Each structure stands twice: as structure tokens, then as C-alpha cells.
């Protein structure tokens, strides 16, 4: 074989060797251990001070600084949560404050409490101060298996000089284990 051909062949062989991709292989990795236990229940009791409170608000809850302990409601506040687990043994709880400034303008407040548009209780509130409404969770409250919308209908409401209808100062609302109250 002439020299130039040999050189060319050698170069081609070297090129071929140098271009072959290295074999990439691995041993089996450490085996993942999946998290044990059961899925954490989602909170169905909403505190207004939660950082993500806006995600629960459907209507008629005024905006405020994140972390504020309470927020003004309008006439028909509604908040939603995802149903997770069985809340049948829980109770529906609403923590709120009847503000004196409203009572002075409107007189006693009549408040209806609702879950998924079902009226689950009502009360007359003639004096200012913190109030807690609670009632056991019933099957009729759980008409939607995936989501619950909690609400209050406040009547009458104070119409502020800027035209905003103000109801109560809401602090917390939702389903809560009876024992935890």
C-alpha cells in the first residue's frame, strides 16, 4: 500500500475511534422511599390573618394588609374552601366582631349564616363586641363534595360616607373539629 494511502487510512481509523461516543451506563440509583402516612388534610377553617386569605374570598370581604387579624365585610361576604376528608363530625364556626360604629348607625344587626347557600343559623346582635357562631355540620351543608362556600347575610348595613356598605369585622370562618374549639 502506498504511503499516502496508509496515512489516509490511519488518519481515518483514528478519526473513527476518536468520534465514537463513549458508552454511558449507570448502576441502579438509590431507591426512592415514598413519603409514608396519609395525605395531610386541607384546612377548612379560614383565619383572616392567613397570608393567602385572598384565595378564599369569593365576595364582599374588603382588602387589607396581609396578616391583618380581621377585615370589614360588606353585606354578603362569601369565602370558599376545598373539602378534604369528612367534616361530618365538625362544626361550622364564625368568629366576628359587631362594631359599635355600625350599631350606632343601624341599630341591632340581623345576621344569617350560610354554607353552600343553605341558611344554617341566624342571630340578632344588639351589642357591640366579639361574637362566635357555631353549629354542628349537617349533611345538607355538604351539598358540594369538593368545595364549601361559607357566608353571612348582614342586615341592615352601615353605608359609609364613601358609599361602601359595611357589615361586621370578620376574623375566622369555616369547619372546625368540635374538640378544638
Amino acid at each position, binding site marked *: 500500500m502506498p504511503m499516502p494511502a496508509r496515512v489516509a487510512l490511519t488518519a481515518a481509523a483514528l478519526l473513527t475511534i476518536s468520534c465514537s461516543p463513549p458508552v454511558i451506563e449507570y448502576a*441502579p440509583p438509590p431507591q426512592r422511599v415514598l413519603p409514608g402516612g396519609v395525605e395531610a388534610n386541607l384546612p377548612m377553617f379560614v383565619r383572616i390573618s392567613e397570608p393567602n386569605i385572598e384565595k378564599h374570598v369569593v365576595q364582599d370581604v374588603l382588602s387589607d394588609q396581609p396578616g391583618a387579624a380581621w377585615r370589614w365585610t360588606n353585606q354578603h361576604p362569601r369565602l370558599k374552601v376545598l373539602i378534604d376528608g369528612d367534616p361530618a363530625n365538625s362544626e361550622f364556626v364564625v368568629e366576628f366582631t359587631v362594631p359599635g360604629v355600625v350599631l350606632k348607625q343601624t341599630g341591632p344587626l340581623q345576621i344569617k349564616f350560610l354554607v353552600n347557600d343553605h341558611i344554617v343559623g341566624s342571630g340578632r346582635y344588639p351589642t357591640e363586641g366579639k361574637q362566635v357562631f357555631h353549629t354542628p355540620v349537617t349533611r345538607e351543608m355538604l351539598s358540594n363534595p369538593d368545595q364549601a362556600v361559607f357566608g353571612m347575610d348582614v342586615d341592615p348595613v352601615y353605608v359609609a360616607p364613601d358609599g361602601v356598605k359595611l357589615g361586621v369585622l370578620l376574623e375566622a370562618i369555616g369547619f372546625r373539629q368540635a374538640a378544638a374549639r
Partner: protein
Amino acid sequence: MKQVVYILVATALTYACSYALGSLLLRTLSVKMRRGEERFLSFIAGSGLLSTIVFLLTAAQVAYKGVFLAASAVIIAAGFWRRAYLPVEAMEELEPLRWRIAFWILFLGFGWFYVGNALAPECSPDGVAYHVALPAHYLRDHGFRPITTNMYANLSQGIEMLFEYAFSIGKHSAAAMVHFLFLLTLPFGLRAYGRRIGRPRAGMIAALLVYLSPVFGRDGTVAYVDVAAAAVVFAMFYALELWREQRTTGAAILAGLLAGFGFAVKYTLGVGVPLVLGAIVAGSRRHWKQGLRAAAAAALFAAVMMAPWLIKNWLFVHNPVSPFYNTLFPNPYVYASFEQQYREFFRHMNGVQLPEIPAEATVRGERLAGLLGPVFLLLPFALLALRRPEGRRLLLAGAVFLVPYFGNIGTRFLMSSIPFLALALAMVLDEFRLVSPLVVALHALLSWPSVLPLYAGTYAWRLERPNWSAALRITPEETYLLQARDDHQMVRRLDAVVPAGEAIFSPAIGNSAYHTRNLIGPFESRLGNRTYDMLFRATIDDLRTTRRLRFHFPALTARRLRVVINVRNDQPLAISEVRLWNDSKELPRDPSWRLRASVNPWEVQSAFDNSPLTVWTVGQRTEPGMFLQIDLGAVRTVDEVTVDVPEVQRWADSQISVDSGDGVWKSVPNQPTQDKLDWPPRMRRAAIEEMKASGFRWLLLRDGELLADDFVERSAQWGVHQVEYANRCRLWRLE
């Protein structure tokens, strides 16, 4: 105001260094040219040299402000010493006086808008995501480091090197101002060319068509690179024209160098290299030896400008042209399947079809992000320039740079061909003495920033009225940025909240220019792709890997075993787990096993890690014959193989091949049955564990984006804690 001074000094130094380098180069190459040409070409060619110098300093890990300033001092001193700033010839003024007056009125009038925008704090989407963010990153590290989680770091960054230089002195807005220099320079290149071909008015018309064009105005006043790209390729063409006249090696070198710089600015402008070489060879038919020498010289200097980027990518991400051609250069950092989707998206950006492009790119400017101006609807008349040799050359260059456009139909990607087409159109308009001033006047009127909203799309990408208070920093930069970008408040908190070195997965917020933490997006890398997919797999039924293909066969002995794909599909097949069984008992995965894959071998372990969340994927279109291989290390008895795939991949089909130890592969005749597996509980939590195993400690989500609600509603199930909330952006810590 002090900040403004730094910005202006940075801009001036960039210009001064570029000009000196370019002027010295042109004199060394002995290219004969007139004063206007010299000014234009000195800056553009010099910017290529300065860019390469900054690249080399960054590659040498000495990217310090002091080093850049020292280099500037040397360059500028050399410029003065060799009289680089003095013109070689007196300026020729061939345009009619009326045109010159009109030019300067429009140039300065629009320039007032432009400079006000360019000086304002930089907040353009791509600017803060990578055009400025990456140079800032290099400066913090004082050099290049492999960045494998952001494909934009792999694009050629010729102009970003100039941004890096300017940023070291004047920070973010200095980058935008450097880009603005190219917008200011390009019209003078067009004017000079008009004079050269004896059509000074045509040069003037083209200069105004380009300079006043809304997309040039918008793009050229932020830290993007498209106007610079247009200027560089026009300079390349100009150098080629000089070679055509002078036939000197120096002119050929200049053309080659600028063609290579075009590639260094944007990969797609690499089409300029064959244009230069082809033109030189074709233009030297009578003196072919001389032509070949000139072409070789041009090719060499083009290679010098291109090579740094190719080598950097080869070393860092094993693909010289990353993030493209990943099938040709397989690598562990970018999926070919992602590249395919990415290309497809930009080929049909926002669903725009080919016949819609003229109206979208010239009038509406909404779906293609920017508008050239309605006057560019006259471009078909540019074909009349084919009657003249200069027109033919311009249209050929315009056509060459138009070719890559169809890979990304955004208006910005037309800009590289516009100077050529504008000149060709101007040559035609110039023949109608009464029409051409009217066209220019109409273009100016329709391009005026306050007129644009009257006809362009509501969300067209266009200039706003300049905020001089912000531009001059009377309004503090922070105040302006908080109003301009809804993510700014959050990203400014990252440095305070997230410890250095901890990675943040950020699907929708890519602003990386105003903090120093590592945001990893869902699309910019394999790691991002995999992580995003995994989060969806934890939440969406169809993506769960609950479909089990069960291959049951009479017991056989196997040393090696393959799962061979039997099907072709545009989607990449994914496999979460491959398990081997004998007598209904799974063969424990032994450390002596060796796992391989014919494609995407780097992720093969994901099919053997006992996690239904992680998958091995072919990472490209699924083709028959692709396989996963297990070398058992010894001969074992197997009577069943199971392969788990996502529910959505009902088309998955494969077969088993076995090597019993004699090196011969035999297919096991078997049709798999399909079962549905139970999805284990707590997979959201498992996904977070996987993210932590991949190095993530944080998650940044904007309200309203995919998965954001799920994290808010089910934060307890994910196991994440919200640490910061600002302007609808939430920073979650992975617990």
C-alpha cells in the same frame, strides 16, 4: 444624576474603544473608504473586536471593572497615538440641502424620544431575563462558568459582551444605551452607502425608513440585540461591496470578520458567512486564485469571530450550537423534544399564519411583537430595484437574511434584512421625486409614538412617551421599576430572603437582572423541563404513571435485557419504572447491574429509582428501535417485565429482547397486557422531595399561573411554606 453620568461614561467609553479598534483595523487592512463609511465601519467592526476582547477577558476569569478600564485606557491611547479618531478624508455632502435638513429634524425629533427611553431604567422582558442578566452574572463571577440550566446562556452573545463591558461601569441602562449606539449609527451607514452607489437621496430615504420604524425605535432603546444585528450584517455587506470594488485581501478580511461577528451576535446571522464567501468566489471567476485566497482569508477571520462561542459551548454543554441541533449533538442539558416544540412555537408565533404576516408585522404589531410601520407594505415595489446591479445585490442580501426569519416570525427577526430591503425600496422611491418625500413624511407621522396607538394593536410592542424624570434618575430607579414590572418587588427581596447558592424554581418569573440568586425556569433546561413535568404529574390524573405494560412469558435466562420501543410518535415516550420479575417476585435492583439507553442515556436511572414521579424519556420524537438496556451482570431467570408509563401515553408499545449471555439478541414473542396501577398517596409531597434532591430549595409562583392555586390551596400537602408575598408573587420555601 450621578448614575446618569456613569451610564453616559459607560456608553461613551464603549463607543470610543470600539471606534478606535475599528479605525486601527481598517487602517491596518488598508481598505479605502470615505469619511462617512469609515465612521460607520470603524464603530461596527471595532465593536466586534471589543466584544471579542471582553469575551477573552471573561474566559480568562478576569472580568473586573478595573481590567476593563485598563484595557479601555490602552485602546483609547493607541487610538490617539495612531490618530484613529481623525478622519482619512473630508466628509462629502452630496445630498440636497432640503433633505439634509429634513433628515436632521426627524433624526433629532425621534432621537429625543429614543434617548429618553434608552436612558430609563432597563426593564425589557428579555433584557432582564438574559441580555443584561447574563453579563451581570459573568461580572459577579468575574468570568464564564458553565451555566447548564439556562439555554440562553448558550446562545452566542457578541453584543452582550459589549453590555458586560458597559454594565461594569454604568449598570443596566448602560446596556440599553450601548444598543442605542447601533440605532444611532445604522442610518449613517445607509446614507454612506447611498452616496457610494451614486444615489444619495435613496440612502437618506432608507436611513429614515429604518431609523423611524417603530420596531427599530423600540428594540434599539432597550438591551436587546436586533438593531445591532441589523447594523452588523449591513456593515458586512458594505465591506463586501468595498471588496468588490477594490479586490484587496484587506476588504475580504473585513467582510469575513463582520460575517463572523454576525454569527457571534445571533446564530441565524451565520448565513452571512456563505454569502460573503460565495460572493467573493463568484466575483473572482477571472482571477480565481486571487479569489480563493481572499475567500480563505475571509473564512479564517469569520472563524476567528465565531470560534469562541462554539468552543465555549462545546466545553460547557457539549453542543457547539446549543440550544439547537440537540439531535446532532446529544447532550444532558437540552432535550431535542423541547427544541422541536420551541422551534414550532416560534415558527407559528401566537398562531400567526403566513398570509397574516404582512399586516401583523407592519400595522398591528401585537401578535408578532412589534411593527415596522405601514409604509413597509410598499416593500414589494422594492423588486423594481432588480433592474440595477446595486438593487440586485441588495435584494440578494435581503433575501439571504430573510431566510432564517421563517424559523421565528416575530417582527424583530425581520430587522436584519430590513436595511437591504429599505435601500432597495428607497432606490425605487427615489425615481419618483414627488412621491419619496411624501412616503418619508407619512412614515414619520405613522411612526410617531403618540400616533401609533391610533392604528396598532392595543398590546403592540412599541415606544412609550419617555419618562424623563426616571431617565435622569430624578424619580429613583427603584420607584420606576416597581411601577414598570410587577415582579420587581419580589425579586428585590430574593437576595435578602434566599441564602446564596440555593436554587429557586420559577416557572413564570424570569427577571434575573436585579438580584443575584439562581432562578431556574421550566423551559430553559432539562432540569427545568423535568421539574415542571413532575409537578404536573403530581397533580394531573392523565400524567400519572399508572399505566403498566406487563410482558409475561415462559421463564428464560437472561444476561442482558432490552425494552425496545415499537412505535413512532411525535411525542417523546416516557417510562417511570422498569421492573423484572420471576415467579411473581421482583428481582431486586443490584448495584452490579448496568443501565443504558440508546437515546438520552443520562437519565436512564430515572426508570429504576422506584419513584412514579421521575421518568426516563427518549427526549425527542419517539422512533422504533430506541431502547433501554439492563445488563444484569450475571445470567438470571426472568418470566415477566413490567414497564410503567403515563396514562396519557396509551400509544406506548414496546417489546422485550434478551441476550442469554452469548451476545445474541433475541426478541421475546409477547404482546403486553395493560393494567392500571394505584397512584400512591402524598405524591405532592414526594414531588417536593424530588425537587430538593435536584437542588431546589425554593419555588416562586405568580398568582394566576399554572399550579399557583394548587400550591396555595394545598400547601400543607405539598409541604411548602410561604415566606414572601409581594404584588401577587409568592415565594415558597420547600420544607
